[in-house]
């Protein structure tokens, strides 16, 4: 009987969670295919005017929705910036993937040292890395700009990749250090007896055992980079280098954007996350890892 109660609690929790997470996004999806008039009806009557995919059509083809083609001359009041959304998604996703990889490589190298090796500058460098996020990012905009400019990296994705790595590495290093320390010493020692150096031990033993935390920190690095706005705005003003958050923010503040057009662009912006999430979860939960370790 007890197990059954557990299951009921699980399903109730799942439903509540789904409502909390999904409801706002469901509204975004729904309103992206509703004509604007329907959204503003009072008393609410959303389905009065049917559905439309004109917003998506416009974003990908630039063809102005029929509803916007009012007879007469006043005909192009539409937020044109949304057309940049597909391209900026690619920019943002590539940057975020690069940051994710840097976090994995730099983060696990450092974390392995901090977790398993003894050396003189261990404590000071550890606290230097992990506490370097204290000063609010807003205050760093000006000096970061100066550094990036001096390195000749303005308007490049390299600059953003470096900055986002700096923003995420402290936390990644901390988490991975914690996690690596939890791995039983005997397993590492066994690997060393087999003749593995630190680097090999890291790659062959620690990394497979620490997959959930690596997935966690990788997701963290990806998400932070994918959604960062402030530095993207300042460091990459050129149109071809721009990222999704900058475009979405700009669109949402345009005076002539409709709610439907805005929600369509937000919906499109979620695609890379959905693509990423599918393969990643497989490695997150124990038992799903093929041929588990131990």
């Amino acid at each position: 009987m007890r197990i059954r109660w557990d299951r009921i609690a699980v399903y109730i929790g799942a439903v509540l969670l789904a409502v909390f997470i999904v409801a706002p996004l469901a509204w975004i999806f729904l309103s992206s295919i509703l004509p604007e008039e329907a959204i503003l009806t009072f008393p609410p009557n959303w389905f009065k005017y049917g559905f439309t995919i004109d917003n998506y059509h416009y974003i990908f083809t630039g063809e102005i929705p029929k509803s916007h083609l009012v007879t007469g001359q006043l005909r192009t009041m539409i937020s044109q910036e949304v057309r940049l959304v597909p391209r900026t998604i690619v920019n943002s996703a590539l940057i975020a993937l690069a940051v994710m990889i840097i976090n994995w490589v730099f983060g696990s190298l450092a974390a392995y040292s901090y977790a398993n090796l003894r050396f003189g500058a261990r404590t000071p460098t550890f606290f230097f890395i992990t506490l370097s996020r204290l000063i609010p990012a807003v205050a760093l905009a000006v000096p970061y700009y100066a550094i990036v400019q001096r390195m000749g990296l303005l308007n490049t994705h390299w600059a953003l990749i470096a900055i986002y790595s700096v923003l995420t590495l402290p936390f990644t290093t901390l988490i991975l250090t914690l996690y690596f320390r939890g791995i039983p010493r005997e397993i590492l020692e066994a690997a060393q007896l087999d003749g593995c150096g630190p680097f090999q031990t890291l790659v062959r033993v620690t990394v497979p055992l620490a997959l959930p935390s690596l997935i966690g920190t990788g997701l963290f690095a990806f998400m932070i980079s994918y959604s960062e706005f402030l530095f993207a705005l300042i460091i990459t003003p050129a149109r071809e280098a721009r990222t999704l958050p900058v475009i979405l923010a700009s669109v949402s503040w345009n005076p002539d954007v409709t709610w439907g057009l805005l929600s369509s662009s937000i919906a499109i912006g979620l695609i890379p996350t959905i693509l990423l999430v599918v393969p990643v979860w497989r490695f997150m939960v124990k038992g799903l890892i093929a041929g588990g370790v131990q």
Partner: protein
Amino acid sequence: MNKVSRRDFLKMVGAGAAAATLSSRWSFNLARAQEPIHLDFVVWSYSVETILDNIKRFEEEYNNAIKVTLTDFSWTAYHETMVNRFASKTPTDVCYNGGDWLPEFAKAGWVVPLEDYFPEAANYKDKIVGYALKDMTYDGKLYGLPYYADITTFQYNAKILEDNGIAAPPATWEELWDQCMLLREKGIQVPIVLEFAQEMPTTLEDFTAMVFGRGGEFFDDKFNVLFNDPQSAAWKQMQWLADAYREKLVSLLPHETDVVKALNTGRHVFTVLYNYNLAELNNKATSPLAGQFKIALMPGETHETYGFCKFYNMTQMAVDRGKDVMDACWKFIEYFGGEHKGEYKVAKRWAVEKGLGFGQLPLYDDKDVQASFAQWIDPEMLKEQAKLARARNQTVWYGIWGEFFRIHLLRAVTGEATVEETMKAAAEKAEELKAQFA
């Protein structure tokens, strides 16, 4: 557009933007003589495809001897990103500017007066409406030509008034109060919506328009404080808003699009907003209540309102690059903001297609502009209100004072502080800044 996106795409696919930039700069230096003059043009992100199209037409007009690269920033972050850009000397030849930032940018030496370098620019002074001219002028010199110039207007839902037996829109703030009370009895709980938020700079412009409607100002020509007096228009208006807020007659929303949406639900009736928003309110494509909205003269004794101008400005960096570049800038600015072959092409396009106001007087008589505007506004009423519009007295520390004042304005209106405290603090701040920047 095709050309641009293909080039962008190649850049993306190629060895990275850094390499691309490097190689293009390098070849530029080698083959300077044959290369076209290159201009960096910086704008805030509004209808960028239209701007690109205008640029293409401009380049073709000059046989591609001038090439323009467009960079755009989100409107809300424009001031801060431009400050960063100028301070770090990122190449910029022509940029959008506004009357509120001009004193700051001019004092910092980032932008230059047009008439110092092109005396013929002064000829435009007769052809530009007064408030636009004032917004583009600093220290007596003309700095630009208009991108657009607009006014803030009192907008209302005429149908709701009619349905509820109210014959005419209010002429004074007291009348507005009475109409709100009447409407509330008929079931309209919150008749007024305003774009009023601490984080939204436009708040101060909306308040300015209301103060102008009462015939007031914040500062005189010497920047002495006028508002710290219970009889001043600003004081009275702040008190009026505080009372209306306490009575829940007014809802304060953070963005103009929120106000437009709220009015289109038919749950609210009055607002004070940039005039171009009326085009969106009456846009049949997206607004369920399109056609019901009109403007009336700003309530108050004088019915004046706030007028402003956004304009094309040449930078000091362009001057530093030499005469060829400056000449190209002037051609560009004149094509975009002035007269080219007898037509104000670009300004007209903004007016006709987007409902943006214009500062160029000849456009008032343009048939296409009149026809387009008639779709969403009563042209006679607009003309009457525009005649009563004026720009603010602004100085280099006005922006800083405005940031300070906006916090206090919001506090006073929502009852967090009294009007008296607010005006006193704002006056002290103004005196402090005046001394600091003397």
